[in-house]
C-alpha cells in the first residue's frame, strides 16, 4: 500500500473518511507538514513548516491512477456522479506530421523498449507542476521498480526537434550537459560523478556493467536523456513549458505503456483540448472491452441486482458499462488508466465496491467438512501440555540465527551441521536456519539470569536441515529440547524428563522395542557425561551435561544439562 497525501477538499474529515471507505480506500491519517516534521525531527524544526491539513490515504498497490491528486479527484467525482468519466483521445497535431521515435537495434543489449507521447498546449501552475514531478517519482519507485524496469523522461518539446532516436552507445561516446550541471560530461564521467549523489547513485547499477549505455537524442544530436540515470539540461521543463515530450524506456514493454498512459492521462486535463494527447508512433492509449453477464457479478458477489443496475455501478467506477440487451450481457469498457483490470474478476471487485461492501448480506458457506488435525501438530500440542505439567517452562525462539550459534558456540563445524544458508541477511542473526533448538534455550537462560534457580525450560519446534530428497533441497524436522540450569548439573533431572517423555509416548525402557541410552562422544557435552538416545532401535537424540566451554560461550556461569531429540519417529 502506498501513502498518498493531498490537500483538504470541501468535506468534513468524517465525510471524507466515509467517502474513502465507500470507494475502497483507507484514510490512514489526517496530519500536516508541521505535524510530520515535528514528529520526526522535533518541534523546533517544525515551526516554519506549513500547517495546511494533509490526508494520508492507503491506495491499493496496482491502482496507479490514484497516485496523484488529479486521478484521485477525478475518480471520486465520477464515483459521486459529479462528473462523467473523461474519454482520453489520441489526436494528430493540427499542423505537420506526428513526432517519431526511432529505436535502433543497439538498444537490445541494454534497454530494448521505448514509448513516447506529447502533451500539447499544457498550462502548468506551481501546484500542477509539483504534482507532475511527484507522480513521475511515485511511478519510478513503484511500478518502475526504482527505474530498473521503466524510466520516465520529460522534455520541453519546443527546445528540441524530432524525429528522435533511442539508441545505445559505448559510454565514452556519449557526451552531454546533464540536468542542473554547467558543463558537459561523458557518460563514463557521469557515472563517477553520481557515485556520491545521494539520489542518483541508487540507479547506476542498472546500466553500469553494460558495454553500451542507452541514450535518446534529437535530429540535431542534442541529448534528451541517458535513461535510466539522468536527463539532458537542454530540454528541461519548467512552469512555462507549453509542449511536453514524455519518453519511457524500459526492460518491459507492457509496463512502459502503462507508465506512459498514466503520465499522459493524468495530466491531459491541463491541455488546451482537455484529455487529448499525442502518442508518438504507437497504438497505445487503448480502450479494451470485456463482455460479461450480470449473473456472473451477482453470483460472485452474492447479490441480486438487475443488469442495468450493475452497469450503472461499474460506470461509477470509471468502467463505462452498458447492458447490451442480449440476455443479461454487459459490455464493459476498460480505460487506459485501469491497467489493473486484467480479468472479469477485477470488474466484479469494482462492482462490489460500488455496491458497498457493507450492503452485501453476510452468508455462511454451506461447505460441509470434517476437521482433522495435522498429526505432527497434534502430537506437539499434547506433549507440550504434559511437559509443562512435568515442571518445565516453554520457550519460543527464532528459527533464524547466526552460524556461530549453531556451530562454533556448540563446539561444532558449520560444514557438519546440514544448515541451509541465507544469501542476503541484513545482520549475522539471520545467516542460517537453526539446526538445533539448544542455542535458543541457552540464550533464553542468558537473558533471564536474574530469575531464581533452577531454570527448567523446553521448546518443541522445527529446525531446518538440507535434504536432497526434497524438491526444495531442505526439510523441517520437529524437535524437542529441554535444559536444566542450576548450581549442580542435574543430569538426573534431565534423564528423568526423558523417562517421563518416553512414558508419555508409550515407549517402555528396553533395548529392542523400547528405549535406552548409551554413552556417546559429543563436543557439545562434557566428556563422559553424554549419552545417545535410542528408541525402537533408532538413534533419536542426545542428552548430557554441557561442556564448560559451551556454557561460557553462551555467557552462562552454572552447570547445565540438556536433552534434544527428534519427535517425528514417534508419530
Amino acid at each position, binding site marked *: 500500500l502506498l501513502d498518498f497525501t493531498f490537500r483538504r477538499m470541501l468535506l468534513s474529515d468524517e465525510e471524507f473518511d466515509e467517502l474513502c471507505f465507500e470507494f475502497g480506500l483507507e484514510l490512514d491519517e489526517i496530519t500536516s507538514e508541521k505535524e510530520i516534521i515535528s514528529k520526526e525531527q522535533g518541534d523546533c524544526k517544525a515551526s516554519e513548516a506549513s500547517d495546511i491539513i494533509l490526508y494520508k490515504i492507503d491506495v491499493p*498497490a496496482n491502482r496507479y491512477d490514484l497516485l496523484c491528486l488529479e486521478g484521485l479527484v477525478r475518480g471520486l467525482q465520477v464515483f459521486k456522479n459529479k462528473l462523467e468519466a473523461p474519454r482520453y483521445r489520441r489526436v494528430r497535431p493540427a499542423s505537420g506530421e506526428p513526432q517519431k521515435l526511432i529505436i535502433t537495434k543497439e538498444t537490445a543489449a541494454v534497454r530494448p523498449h521505448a514509448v513516447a507521447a506529447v502533451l500539447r498546449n499544457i498550462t502548468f501552475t506551481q501546484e500542477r507542476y509539483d504534482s507532475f514531478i511527484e507522480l513521475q517519482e511515485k511511478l519510478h519507485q513503484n511500478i518502475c*521498480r526504482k527505474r530498473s*524496469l521503466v524510466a520516465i523522461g520529460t522534455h520541453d518539446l519546443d527546445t528540441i526537434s524530432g524525429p528522435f532516436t533511442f539508441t545505445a552507445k559505448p559510454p565514452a561516446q556519449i557526451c552531454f550537459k546533464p540536468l542542473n550541471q554547467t558543463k558537459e560530461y561523458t557518460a563514463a564521467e557521469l557515472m563517477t560523478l553520481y557515485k556520491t549523489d545521494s539520489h542518483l547513485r541508487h540507479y547506476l547499477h542498472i546500466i553500469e556493467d553494460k558495454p553500451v549505455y542507452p541514450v535518446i537524442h534529437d535530429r540535431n544530436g542534442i541529448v534528451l536523456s541517458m535513461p535510466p540515470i539522468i536527463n539532458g539540461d537542454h530540454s528541461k521543463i519548467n512552469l512555462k513549458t507549453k509542449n511536453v515530450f514524455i519518453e519511457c524506456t524500459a526492460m*518491459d*514493454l*507492457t*509496463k512502459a505503456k502503462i507508465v506512459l498512459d498514466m503520465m499522459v492521462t493524468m495530466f491531459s486535463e491541463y491541455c488546451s483540448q482537455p484529455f487529448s494527447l499525442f502518442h508518438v508512433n504507437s497504438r497505445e492509449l487503448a480502450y479494451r472491452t470485456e463482455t460479461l453477464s450480470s449473473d456472473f457479478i451477482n*453470483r*460472485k*458477489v452474492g*447479490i441480486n441486482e438487475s443488469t442495468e443496475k450493475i452497469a450503472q455501478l461499474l460506470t461509477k467506477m470509471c468502467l463505462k458499462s452498458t447492458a447490451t440487451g442480449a440476455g443479461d450481457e454487459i459490455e464493459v469498457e476498460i480505460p487506459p488508466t485501469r491497467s489493473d483490470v*486484467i*480479468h472479469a474478476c477485477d470488474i466484479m471487485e469494482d462492482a*462490489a465496491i460500488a455496491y458497498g461492501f457493507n450492503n*452485501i448480506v*453476510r*452468508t*455462511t*458457506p454451506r*461447505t*460441509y*467438512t470434517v*476437521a*482433522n*488435525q*495435522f498429526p*505432527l501438530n497434534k502430537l506437539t*500440542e499434547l506433549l*507440550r*501440555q504434559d*511437559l*509443562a505439567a512435568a*515442571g518445565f*517452562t*516453554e*520457550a*519460543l525462539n*527464532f*528459527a*533464524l540465527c547466526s552460524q556461530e550459534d549453531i556451530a562454533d558456540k556448540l563446539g561444532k563445524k558449520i560444514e557438519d551441521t546440514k544448515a*541451509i*544458508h*541465507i*544469501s*542476503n*541477511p*541484513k545482520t549475522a542473526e*539471520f545467516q542460517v*536456519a537453526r539446526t538445533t533448538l539448544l542455542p*535458543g534455550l541457552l540464550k*533464553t537462560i542468558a537473558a533471564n539470569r536474574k*530469575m531464581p534457580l533452577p*531454570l527448567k525450560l*523446553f521448546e518443541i519446534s*522445527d529446525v531446518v536441515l538440507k535434504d536432497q530428497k526434497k*524438491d*526444495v*533441497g*531442505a526439510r*523441517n524436522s520437529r524437535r524437542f529440547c529441554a535444559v536444566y540450569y542450576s548450581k549442580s548439573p542435574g543430569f538426573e533431572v534431565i534423564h528423568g524428563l526423558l523417562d517421563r517423555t518416553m512414558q508419555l509416548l508409550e515407549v517402555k525402557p528396553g533395548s529392542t522395542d523400547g528405549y535406552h541410552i548409551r554413552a556417546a562422544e559429543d563436543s557439545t557435552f562434557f566428556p563422559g557425561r553424554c549419552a545417545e538416545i535410542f528408541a525402537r532401535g533408532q538413534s533419536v537424540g542426545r542428552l548430557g551435561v554441557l561442556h564448560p566451554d559451551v556454557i561460557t560461550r553462551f555467557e552462562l556461569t552454572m552447570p547445565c544439562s540438556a536433552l534434544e531429540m527428534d519427535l517425528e519417529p514417534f508419530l
Partner: protein
Amino acid sequence: MADTGVLELLRLIEKADDGVDSVDAASRLGVDHQVVVGAVKSLQSLGDIISAEQRSSKHWELTEEGSEIAKQGSYEARVFSAVPLEGLAQSDLMKLPFGKIGFSKAMSNRWIKVDKAQEGGPRVYRSVDSVVDQVREKLLLLQKGSGSQLEDKDKNELKKRKLLSEVTVKSYWIGKGNSFSTTITKQETELTPEMIASGSWKEKKFKPYNFEAMGVAPDCGHLHPLMKVRTQFRQIFLEMGFTEMPTNNFIESSFWNFDSLFQPQQHPARDQHDTFFLSDPALSHEFPQDYLERVKRVHSEGGYGSQGYMYDWKIEEAQKNILRTHTTAVSARMLYKLAQQEKFTPVKYFSIDRVFRNETLDATHLAEFHQIEGVVADYGLTLGDLMGILHQFFTKLGLKKWVEVGNSGVFRPEMLLPMGLPEDVSVIAWGLSLERPTMIKYGINNIRELVGHKVNLQMVYDGPICRLDS
C-alpha cells in the same frame, strides 16, 4: 508460654467497666508490660474475645544514675552528711566518689562553707543545721508513679542532670470483645491424622487462618503465552470444521511462494529487501512440469479470461529458494493437490506457522512471525460468504474491529485455473498474524518481550490461561 497472664488479664478486664490500659494492667498484675502485650496478642488470635486499641503515651523514667540517687540520696546531701560538725579538709572531701559534684551543688545551695585560712589547707564546715534532699524526694515521687505532682520545670531540671528521661510507651487500651469470656480453651493450629482417628477434633477449637497472606507458589512449568493463543486459534478453526495443513516446510521455492499465486516476477515483495533468499540450497529443481507451463503462460500471455502480465517469465526466477514469506505457499500446494483429485471435493483448510520477511525490524516487527490462515474452496462461494465466515471467525475471537488485524480475499482465477480446479469453484481465504492479537490481548508493546530469547520469563510464569472470547 504465650498464655502467661492471660487468665489474670481477663479477670482484670471483667472488672474494669471501660477497659484498662495495658501498662496499668501490667503494674496491677505485677508483671512486665511485655507479658501483657503477649497475652493481648494471643487473645486477639482467638477471635473477638477482647478489643484492643493501640495507643502510645509518654512518661518519665529514672535513669540508672537517677535510681541510684533515689536510693542513696543526692550527691550534695551525701556531701552534707559527710561533713561533721568540726569540719573536714576539702582535699579529703574531694576524694569521696560524689565529692566534686556534691561539693559544688552543696556550695550553691549554701549548705556548706569553706575556710581557706585553716592550717593544713582549706577546710569545709556545715553552714546549716539540717537539709531537705529535694532532688531525692522528687525522684522518689517519680519512681512511685506520682510524677504528676511535680512541675515541668522540675522534671526538665532533673532531665538536664541526666537523672530522668522521657520515654514513649506503646500500650493497648483493652476492653471486652463481643464474645468476651474469662475461660478459654487452648486452640489447635492444624488438623492432624490423630485427631481424625480419635475424633478429638470435635472438641477442639482451631486457630483461625490468616486469609490476608499469599499462599505458597506451586512448583510447576508454564506454557508460552503465544503458544497458548495458538492453541486457541487451532481450537477455533477445528470448531469451525477446518482441517490443518502441513506447514512444516520453512524453505520454499519462489515458484510455490509467488509464481503459483500469480505474483509477477518483478513484484516488489520478491525483492532482496523483503525476502530471504538461500545461497545453499539455492535452487529448486522439481516442479510439476505441465502445471509449471500453465503458470508460465498465464503470467506471460494470459489465458483463462485474463490479459496476463505480458512479460518474459523466467524459470530461473521461479527456481530460487527462499524462506517462505507466507503460509499461502502451502495453501497453493494443497489446492494444487486438491485439483489433482479425480473429483473435486469442497475443503476448509487452516494453518498457523512461521513465515519470514527480510524487513527492517522495530518494536512490532521481527524477521519472522506466525501467520494464521484460513482457506475455503467450494462451488459458488460469494463475497458475502467471505464476509460471513470472517464475521463468525472474529466473533469467536472476541474481536470487533477485525478489519485492522487481517487481510482477506478471493483467490484469482489466474491462480486457480492453471492448477486444474473446476471453473466454478471459488476459493476464499484470510490471514492475520498470531503476534498482533496476542500483543493486544496481553498488552505487550515490544514484540521482543514476547518472542525470542529476550522473553521475560516472569511474564511467562505469571501468564493467565487464554480465553480469546472473554
